[in-house]
C-alpha cells in the first residue's frame, strides 16, 4: 500500500492533466478531417474506409463557391479595415500617454466582453434604421468592430517593444516624420501588421453570428454551412468544406504567429544590451 501511494506521487500529475486537457482541446477539430475522408454518410465509428468523394462534390457546388467568394471579399476587407484601425489605436497607446487612454482602450476592446448576439442585433437595428440594405458591406462593417480588438492585441504586442530611440535616431539623421514612419517604423513592425491581417482574416472567415444577421441574401461560408446543417445527408460534404477551412485557418494562424514573433525579436533586439 505504501509502495502504491509512493508510486502515485511519482506520477507527474500536472503534465498528465495538461496532456488530457490538450486532447480535449484538439479532439473535436481532429475529428472533422477524419470523417471528411470516411466512406460513409454517417459520422460513426468504426470508419468505413477512405474516400475523397466528399471533396469532389464541393467542386461542382456553385452556391458554395459563391459563398466562398463572398467570404473572401469580406475577409480581405475586414482584415484591411480592422488592421488599419488597429494600427492607429495600438500606436496611440504604445507611443503616447494621454488622459482617457484606459477608457478609450477599454471601449475599443469592449466587443471582446459582449455577447456577440447583442452586437449583432444592435448593428442590425442601426443598419436597418438608417435604411441601409443588408449586404456584404454591412457584414464588413460589423465584423470590423468585432475584429479590431484582436488586431489591436496582435499589434500592441508587436509595437510594445519598439524602441523609441529608433525613431529619434532617424529624425536625428535628418529624416522627416513621414520619412521616419516609412523607413523605420513600418519596416520594423511590418511582420506584426501582416500577422494582424492574417489573424483578422481568419476570424472573419470563421465568424458566423454577425454574418448570419447582417448578410441578407449574400451568405458567407459559415452562413452557407449553417444552412446545410439541417440536411443530414449533406454532412460529409460540410465536413470536407470544414476541413479545408480548418487547414486554411491553421496555416494562416501559424504564419501569423511566426511573423508576430519575428517582430518581437526585432524590436526586442533593438534595445537588447550585450
Amino acid at each position, binding site marked *: 500500500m505504501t509502495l502504491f501511494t509512493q508510486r502515485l506521487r511519482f506520477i507527474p500529475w500536472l503534465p498528465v492533466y495538461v496532456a488530457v486537457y490538450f486532447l480535449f482541446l484538439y479532439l473535436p477539430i481532429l475529428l472533422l478531417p477524419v470523417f471528411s475522408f470516411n466512406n460513409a454518410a454517417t459520422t460513426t465509428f468504426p470508419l468505413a474506409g477512405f474516400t475523397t468523394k466528399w471533396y469532389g462534390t464541393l467542386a461542382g457546388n456553385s452556391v458554395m463557391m459563391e459563398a466562398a467568394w463572398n467570404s473572401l471579399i469580406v475577409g480581405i476587407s475586414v482584415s484591411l479595415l480592422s488592421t488599419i484601425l488597429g494600427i492607429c489605436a495600438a500606436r496611440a497607446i504604445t507611443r503616447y500617454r494621454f488622459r482617457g487612454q484606459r477608457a478609450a482602450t477599454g471601449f475599443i476592446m469592449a466587443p471582446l466582453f459582449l455577447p456577440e448576439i447583442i452586437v449583432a442585433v444592435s448593428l442590425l437595428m442601426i443598419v436597418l434604421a438608417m435604411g441601409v440594405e443588408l449586404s456584404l458591406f454591412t457584414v464588413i462593417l460589423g465584423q470590423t468592430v468585432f475584429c479590431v480588438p484582436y488586431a489591436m492585441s496582435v499589434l500592441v504586442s508587436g509595437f510594445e517593444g519598439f*524602441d523609441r*530611440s*529608433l525613431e*529619434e*535616431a*532617424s*529624425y*536625428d*539623421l*535628418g*529624416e*522627416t516624420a513621414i*520619412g521616419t514612419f516609412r*523607413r*523605420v517604423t513600418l*519596416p*520594423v513592425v511590418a511582420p506584426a501588421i501582416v500577422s494582424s491581417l492574417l489573424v483578422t482574416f481568419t476570424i472573419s472567415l470563421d465568424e458566423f453570428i454577425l454574418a448570419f444577421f447582417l448578410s441578407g441574401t449574400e451568405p458567407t461560408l459559415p452562413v452557407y454551412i449553417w444552412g446545410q446543417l439541417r440536411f443530414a445527408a449533406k454532412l460529409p460534404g460540410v465536413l470536407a468544406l470544414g476541413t479545408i477551412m480548418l487547414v486554411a485557418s491553421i496555416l494562416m494562424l501559424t504564419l501569423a504567429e511566426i511573423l508576430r514573433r519575428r517582430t518581437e*525579436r*526585432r*524590436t526586442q*533586439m*533593438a*534595445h537588447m*544590451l*550585450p
Partner: protein
Amino acid sequence: MSDRAMIQIEKVSKFYGIYMALDDVSLSIGEGEFFSLLGPSGCGKTTLLRSIAGFETPTAGEIYIDGVPSLALPPNKRPTNMVFQSYAIFPHLDVAENVAYGLKRLKLSPEEEKKRVGDALDMVRLSGLGQRKAHELSGGQRQRVALARALVMRPKVLLLDEPLSALDKKLREEMQVELRTLQKAVGITFILVTHDQYEALALSDRIAVMFGGRIAQIASPKEIYQRPRTRKVADFLGGMNFLNAKVLGEQANAVSVDAARFGAVNLVKPQGFAAASGHVTVGIRPERLRLLWDDDRAPHELTGRIENRAYFGEVTHLTVGIDGLEQPLSMVETNNFGADDLPVGAEIRLAYDPDAFVLLAEDPPVSRV
C-alpha cells in the same frame, strides 16, 4: 580646438509638470572640444543633451548651435547627431544601410555615398562588416555602427548619451581610448553624457558636473578633481576626507584655517568665498595621504591606528583613526611596500602635503518647484 563657441546654452530651464529637470542652465562649449556632462541619474544631464539634439523642448531659455538659435528647429534640421544609449541600430537594415541611412536624404551619387559609408566604417574599424545584420553584431560593434552612422553625417556636434554604459569594463576602457582618438581625428565638438566619473576624467577637455538640474561646476578634469568647488562635487568625483576647520585669516587669494590635527593650512580662496560662521569644510583626497615606513621622515606627519583595511588588488584602502579627529581618515596605498600586510590595530605614521587641502563651498540647497 578653438575658442569659438559651438554650443551656447543660455538660461535653459525645463519643467515636467512641477518637476524641474533643468534649472536655469547656462554654459558654452567650444569648437572641437570634448565636453562631458557628469552627474548622478536624474540630474538633468540627459535632458540637457536631448535639448541640444532637439528631442526635448526647454520651457525657457535658448540654445545656440554654431551661433544659430535652435530651439525652434526640429532634430532633423540641426547640425548635431547623436549616439543613443541603446545605440538604436535599425534592426531591419544591415550595417552599411544603417550608416547610409541619413545620407539617403542628401541625394548623393551612389559612388559618393558608397565612399562616405566606406570611410566611416574604416574610421570605426568596421571595414568589411557592411553586410552584417544588426543582430549579428557584438555590443562593441553596435556602438561603432552608431558612431559611424552619426559621424558620416559630418555633424558640427556629436552627442553621446551614455555610449559606453552597456559595455563590460574591459571593452569600455578600450572604447574610451578609441573615442578620444576618434575625436582628435575628426576634430568636431563631442558632448558626452555619463555618470561614470573616471570616464569623464579620462576623455574630456572640460567637465560640467550637474546635480538637481543645475550645474555645480565646470572645469578641466584635473581642476575638477583636485579643486572641487563644493563638497558634493568632491564626493561625486572620488573619495575625499572632509574636515571641519576654523578660519584663522583671510587674504586676497587665500584663506588660512585651523584644520584640527593637521594644524594651520593655507588654502586657495575660491571665487565668491564667504565663510558664514568662521567654520568651513576642507577636504583632502585619500591618495594625498602617504604611509611612512621605518626611517621615512616627512615635514608634516601624523600618527594613527589602522581601524579597517580593504584589499583591492593593486591598492589597499586603509581607514586610520587619529586622536583628535572626529572621523577616521581614508587613505589609498599601492601594494608595493606591504600596506596589504598591515594588521588592523597597527600603529602607523602618515605624511600629508598642506597644499593638497581644498576649501569646499556649501552646496546650494536643492530646489524643487
